[in-house]
């Protein structure tokens, strides 16, 4: 916005008002896109990532520790030789625009909550990454729907060499 110091009379006030009006009109006409992308800046869930124990971690991450079995699939190796690098894929057979988030937990890690993925506009509810596991444990993938339902899939991965040591 333009700011003038020398002429703060009625004329410049009207000018400024006019300019503001134009901006508002432009926004109204859809010339300026609403900044949806900024609204999607999700807060980093530090507390949930620090929570110890499965129930506490799920509660901190999702506000509930219960989720319904089904609608989600979790791909992970049955045996991981190296716990430092365990590839996982979480996906859902629900419609892409129904799945808001995926949450990943490793039950026996010191802090089970591992990652959260926001499916803002991906077109397919599927995400893959590689995670660390300290010991043999269940991995739980939870899909959170846009209407606040939670679905989960669980898979046990046997770890022969832990991934958290030096």
């Amino acid at each position: 916005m333009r700011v003038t110091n020398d002429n703060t009379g009625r004329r410049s006030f009207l000018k400024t008002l006019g300019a503001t009006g134009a901006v508002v009109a432009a926004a109204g006409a859809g010339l300026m896109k609403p900044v949806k992308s900024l609204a999607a800046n999700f807060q980093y869930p530090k507390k949930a990532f620090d929570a110890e124990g499965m129930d506490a971690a799920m509660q901190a991450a999702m506000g509930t520790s219960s989720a319904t079995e089904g609608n989600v699939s979790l791909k992970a190796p049955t045996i991981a030789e190296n716990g430092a690098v365990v590839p996982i894929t979480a996906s859902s057979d629900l419609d892409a625009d129904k799945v808001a988030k995926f949450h990943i937990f490793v039950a026996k890690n010191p802090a089970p909550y591992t990652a959260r993925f926001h499916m803002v506009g991906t077109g397919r509810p599927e995400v893959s990454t590689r995670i660390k596991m300290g010991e043999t444990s269940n991995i739980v993938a939870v899909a959170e729907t846009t209407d606040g339902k939670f679905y989960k899939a669980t898979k046990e991965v046997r770890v022969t060499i832990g991934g958290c040591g030096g």
Partner: protein
Amino acid sequence: MAKTGTARIRVGSAQKGQPTQVRSLILHPMETGLRKDPKTGEKIPAHYIQKVKADFNGERVFEADWSVAISKNPYMSYYLAPQSSGTLKMTWEDNQGGTYTAEAEVKVG
């Protein structure tokens, strides 16, 4: 030598409105803060990526929050359903203030 923050994005061939896979990789130690230096016995400070953001033509399409349990040199894949050709920009932010970006051109055929 490989440098922390070096990142790469690969996008599969894209059809208008159809989901195509995006694969990303970034070089990063992902230190948990629990490990000790085997030589000195001192704790290595935590240094890990916390946030990953993906914007297609300036609009957010995907975002991730990571704990220390994501593996070193993190890999992540997800999908994108582009309506038009454009630029996919990814940003990785770590707990020590490091910010790294990479871009990929997406051509809708």
